[in-house]
């Protein structure tokens, strides 16, 4: 047995804005545990990804064991446990998008960004060297009527073609 245990050198905590938002949202739930998902989203927005320090902090906030937080973080693919790009591009590859040539969009994105597609266990594979983009495939984004679609961070982009993708990428601030 190795005695090695994660030592948290700089503890995570919410900045003032997020603390305010947390205080507001915790009141909406009957039990603290129920606020797990929005709390993790807040933390991920602040830190970029879920570190052991974040898990410990969230566990303390919600009065749970660290394992309960880890459990949720590993359950959902929307939480990252390793660094991702500034812009996370999620491309839908389910049936309607596939019929509407999402493959062309995906290949275009891969060529344009010069990166592969991330897998759930290896996000670095889909992250550009400059750390600006992470490209990943997702299941249905619930917008089949405007397929093919991608999400860049929290925003949805519809009816995509390679040209529209070029336009979109150019207007994203650095």
């Amino acid at each position: 047995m190795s005695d090695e245990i994660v030592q948290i050198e700089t503890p995570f905590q919410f900045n003032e804005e997020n603390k305010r938002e947390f205080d507001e949202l915790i009141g909406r739930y009957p039990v603290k545990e129920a606020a797990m998902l929005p709390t993790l989203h807040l933390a991920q927005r602040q830190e970029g990804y879920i570190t052991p320090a974040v898990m410990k902090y969230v566990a303390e906030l919600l009065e749970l064991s660290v394992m309960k937080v880890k459990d949720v973080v590993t359950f959902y693919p929307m939480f990252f446990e390793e660094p991702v790009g500034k812009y996370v591009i999620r491309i839908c590859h389910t049936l309607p998008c596939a019929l509407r040539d999402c493959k062309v969009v995906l290949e275009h994105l891969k060529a344009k960004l010069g990166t592969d597609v991330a897998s759930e266990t290896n996000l670095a594979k889909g992250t550009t060297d400059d750390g600006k983009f992470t490209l990943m495939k997702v299941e249905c984004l619930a917008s089949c009527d405007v397929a093919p679609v991608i999400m860049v961070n929290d925003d949805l982009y519809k009816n995509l073609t390679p040209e529209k993708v070029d336009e979109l990428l150019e207007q994203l601030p650095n």
Partner: protein
Amino acid sequence: MAFIKLNDLEIEVEDGTNIVEAARQHGIEVPHYCYHPGLSRPANCRMCLIDLYLRSSEMPERQLATGCTTTVRSAPPERKLDGKYDVIVRTDSPRVIKAREDILEFLLVHHPLDCAVCDQAGECDLQDFSYRHGHDKSRYLEVKNVPPKKDLGPDILLYSTRCIVCTRCIRFCDEVSGSGELGLINRGSHDEIDIPRSHEGVPIQLLDNKLAGNVVDICPVGALISKDFLFKSRPWFMKKQNSICSGCSVGCNITVEYKEDGLYRIKPRFHEDINQHWMCDDGRLGYHYVNSDDRLQLPLKRVDGELATTQWSDALSLITERISEVEAEEIVVIGSAQGTNEDNYVLQQFAHDVLKTTQLGLFGQQPGEEHKFPQFTIEADKNPNTAGARTVLGSANGNTVLEGDALWEKVADAKVVYLISGVPERSLESTEKEALEKVNFLIVQDILHSEVAELADVVLPGTTFAEKDGTFTNSTGWVQRIRKTIDPPGEAQADWEITQQLAKQLGGEIDYHFAGEIAIAISENVQGYDDATHQNIGDAGVKLD
């Protein structure tokens, strides 16, 4: 009481009993994995499915329900089925049998079937239920998941491949130990039990609480494994003996598993009022001193300042000689809180009838820490029999039992001290050491080359809880039996036997043949112990009033 029809049996069970337990009470097996009587019931393994009749046993309306969450209650007359039953279930209908087979096939989808090298083989529910209720073949042709083997904590390994994700271990850590170290990572068929780790796999928290060993017991398969027992023995090569843990004053009921060469494993045994299904790791893993090479096997006597082995006859006559040189009131006799009631009874008889001294003391392990868990407590008193030893030693007329500083003051003034220790590991405090060093002739009866034995003029080899019969009285007044499991090492003897031999040498008339006989004497002479004969105590124990 509820009146239920279970298969073709008509039985009465208490309200609130579930079908798994009701069936078990009548010798019918309902296979189950996630259900454990000491934990909450998520009904996630689906193994205990039974056929629940909704209208009557004659009508086809029925459903497959999980037996563990189907509890029975007596129904009002208009809702009785067939006019008299509260519940009608079948555990043997073709539908149930088919459901079990299919669920077992699912549970075995990712299982490596590595029984040949698995520690659990022979006591594995997956093996047993597959044999009794399963298919003989699998239709799964795809690649199996192979999650890694994991180190969870100081004593626990997880062979993830064998895990069927029943979550008993998680619920144990949440509900009984309250420490919540375990959980599930990932999703669906990739679910794995784990402790919290960083993304790189470095633990954030280890499975390191004092009840952690219980997760190995409740694991129905070979996934959670104790490092202490790993690869040491096949379960069927060991014999079992019911006994009581000697680690603290809780008095957990245990099963000692052993072979000729010593103890191999200790597991908790159910007792509703004392330890439920559980025991702590201090007791579970604390048996190694019994097998130790450091055990005293022959009497020792001090020759030219060093302790050297000697014969029993020699040691006994030396003691007799030195005792007869001193006055009765210059002798202090000290019993042990690690010893049985029988040991201490014979000792007080020896002190009172033979030595005629009234100076009796009690020795034992130093107090440790109390650990409280939501459903379990480890006592601070690290002796199994403080309550019993105190009562029994003090039972002879007018004896007060000295403890602590009062005892050591008396010891410092004494010429001869006969001290029974039997404490596995105990350091002496300076006052204790100084007092014992002042004694002219110190007789120590112990099990190991301990610090107190090092000070003695004569050391007599006694026995541990695993090598003698007797009774312990726990902190809540339960008198319970320990049983001789293995032979003592070398020429070591039960403590009461040694005391009795000493008494005989000194012309006393103490003559017991076995511990049960002493227990009868205790029941006759010690107040409150009227019912505490070995016959009455059995495996369930006797609660003192």
